[in-house]
């Protein structure tokens, strides 16, 4: 699921990857709200009974950015293969419940502010939208689907100096940008 403001934003990536699996686009962040997704990439395992058997995890498919974020993809990919082939998971059903991250009332208010901002931005009411993008980011500073994800909607380069300053400040104040599961 691509969290992008328009299918055209996700299209080059999907066309280059030519995936055999369904590749969907969520322009309203409805699934980010539904699954409490606060950054990308976020990966979940859902079993045949449609139960979440591995909750939100930061997983990378390749080692392209390992030097930057320090997350080694190999153990996570091996765990995925073990689950697909043999149904084996390192996380017990009881642990799944403990590891699920649930939103707070403030997080949900941030999502409402973000929803209003997106609506105003789609209408071309940029000044009105900016007030609510800012408010959403202040309410949920850990939610980079809001703080970084809003940048293309606000004419800000999401890979540029404003992004780097935002992450630098976040990490310098003792926070983590990605939240990988412990195992």
């Amino acid at each position, binding site marked *: *699921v*691509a*969290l*992008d403001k328009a*299918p055209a*934003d*996700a*299209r*080059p*990536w*999907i066309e280059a990857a030519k995936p055999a699996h369904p*590749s*969907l*686009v*969520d322009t309203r962040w*409805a*699934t980010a*709200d*539904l*699954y*409490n997704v606060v950054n*990308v*990439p*976020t*990966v*979940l*395992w*859902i*079993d*045949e*009974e*449609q*139960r*979440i058997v591995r909750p939100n995890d930061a997983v990378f498919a390749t080692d392209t950015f390992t030097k930057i974020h320090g997350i080694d993809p190999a153990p996570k990919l091996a765990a*995925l293969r073990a*689950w697909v082939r043999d149904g084996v998971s390192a996380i017990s059903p009881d642990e799944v*419940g403990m590891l*699920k991250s*649930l*939103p*707070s*009332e403030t*997080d*949900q*208010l941030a*999502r*409402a*502010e973000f*929803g*209003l901002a997106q*609506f*105003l931005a789609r209408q071309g*009411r940029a000044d*009105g939208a900016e007030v*609510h993008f800012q*408010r959403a980011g202040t309410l949920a500073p850990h939610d980079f689907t809001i703080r970084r*994800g809003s*940048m*293309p909607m606000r004419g800000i380069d*999401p890979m540029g100096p404003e992004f780097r300053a935002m992450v630098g400040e976040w990490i310098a104040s003792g926070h983590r940008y990605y939240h990988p599961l412990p195992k």
Partner: protein
Amino acid sequence: VTVFTLIDEGRETSVDADVRDGRVLIEADDVEAATGWAYKPDGLCRGEICVPVRKAEIDSKGRIDLVVLAEALRQPLALDIAESAAFLGTSASDRSDQLRSRHAPDFRLPDLDGHLHSLSDYAGRKVLLIFYASW
């Protein structure tokens, strides 16, 4: 009367609003059209579920304050009077109940060709759900 856009669960509805003293008053029929919640003697009701609303919260013209509505429904509210728009979100308790429940929350989204896919279409198979973005 001001035309106000009320967005509930992602659905946009234009409603007539009376905006005065920082309050946004919306008629019961418009509240029902936008949210599905109807004003009845038991309070605000949708299907079998009713939530209490004090009589004092409904004015003589059958209108309810948007802030009072959001509080009664326990939904977070983002409101912009100058832009004549408001967004009713989903409460943390509803979201948490869904995430704690046995079933992964279902959703339906389009692919690049506009074909819709639901998570529930893939019941009986293992699903790796990956969220990513161009940004």
